[in-house]
């Protein structure tokens, strides 16, 4: 096993456990915003997409990369915006929505 793979696997395992711990604590009240937020976060695929689109190594890879950047960008913009919009709707008794 190469050292970078080993580190990668450590990171994956630790991040999964951390994720399970943090997400278990999210109030069920907010499960919909949780899903839209994690969806926006998983648009981190934009990192790989930008590289493939920008390296311009072949026409195929540039086309696929550009499509991938578009898809990721849709999720980044759409995901963060709608999560924020949803959370703005939650208000406590006695307070009006701002």
């Amino acid at each position, binding site marked *: 096993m190469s050292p970078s793979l080993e580190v990668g696997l450590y990171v994956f395992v630790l991040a999964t456990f951390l994720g399970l711990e943090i997400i278990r604590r999210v109030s069920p009240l907010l499960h919909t915003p*949780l*899903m839209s937020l*994690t969806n926006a*976060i998983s648009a981190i695929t934009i990192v790989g997409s930008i590289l493939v689109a*920008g*390296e311009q190594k072949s026409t195929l890879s540039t086309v696929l990369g550009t499509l991938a950047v578009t*898809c990721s960008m849709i999720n980044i913009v*759409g995901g963060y915006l709608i999560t924020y919009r949803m959370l703005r709707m939650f208000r406590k008794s006695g307070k009006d929505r701002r």
Partner: protein
Amino acid sequence: MIDRAIPLLYIGAAASFILALKWLSTVTTARRGVVVGAAGMALAVAGTLMKPEIESYRWIAVAFVVGTAIGIPMALMPMTAVPQRTALSHAFGALAAALVGTAEFYLHAPAIDRFTMGALVLEVLLGFLTFTASLMAFGKLQEILPTRPITWRGQNILNFAILGVAVASGAYLVARPDAIRLFPVLGGLALVFGVMLIIPIGGADMPTVISLLNSYAGLAAAAMGFVLDNKLLIIAGALDGSSGLILSVIMCRAMNRSFTNVLFGAFGQVQATTGAGEEQRAVRSATPEEAAGVLQAASRVIVVPGYGMAVAQAQHKVRELYDALTKAGIDVRFAIHPVAGRMPGHMNVLLAEANIPYDRLVEMEEVNSDFPQADVALVIGANDVTNPAARHDTNSPIYGMPILDVDKARTVMVIKRSMSPGFAGIDNELYYLDRTLMVFGDAKAVVGNLVKEFAGGT
């Protein structure tokens, strides 16, 4: 020089994502979480754009503009459409992973080492199957496709065969990276499997399926991280994967089902046959006027909203009723079943949108002990989650499913369009209890009348 800072930006991004999810745990800090998450994404994008490998920014810029132009309207969809919107964005996320994997394969094959190939195969397999599966889920939620499960003999065997051949071609590619022609087979089968996976799944199981697809999309991103040796991708993908996993476990538990049962059990089918042949039983029906009278005499009311309320667009009328009752000094709370709505937590968002305070929304475990003290349980558009058969009738398809103990309230009031059975096709014995009053009609109109009659009577 500048590119030495890139790893630092990535570490900053990873930390922001973790903080974002941590702050999402309570309503008061959640908005801060979103802002931090967005800032983390900005760091990651900025860091990537600084990479020296990038030759040209032209197509990246075009994709940014197009993606933003599509992303904004997708953020402005109505709250009732959030489940299908989420399915669609799972499709986009998974497609991005699959396309990058495909590009990487054709750029480097056959000079790809075994491990990278393994990760790449996983990325492409999960990416493509999640892409089509999410599109199918979108179609079912949007009701472009039939929401009833569609099954046929040998379906599971066929599906396993498709997945099996796909996995086998992937494994062969890992062993023999020069078998380039197998790659389209892998991708194609993954696309087909995604479609086949969702065909037998009914609308009632969509909350579980969406959560599962959320998990897959995250794992595809993590696999991409292994291919590109990028820890940020691995972390973000793992967070998303674990979140989807937790949500699907919660959804499964809320329906007393197992994963295998959701994916291969074809729910609604079994139920279509049960309950048939039973004789007509008597129900007590009431007019909105009579119902309003019962509410006036109450001091504690628990409202049980279901997706039917949202279909009838009755949320805002329900808010008016909440206001009227509260003003009259009646304690009103809302009992939220975990699978109320069409995705995890959906009902909370729908009620919050109608401006109902979130501290009035109570989860099932918490509220169930309060039903015996409630004067009225008002069921609006909910069905299976209130069916007492789940507690005692071992023959019922929903036996064992945790339900809201609505039948323990002094009076149960059910607003319903007709006596037809619900989403899962099961007759609800709650409707035949002596303490149950049925108020027939469109939820929006009935609740509107209730508000009027209630105000008129005080």
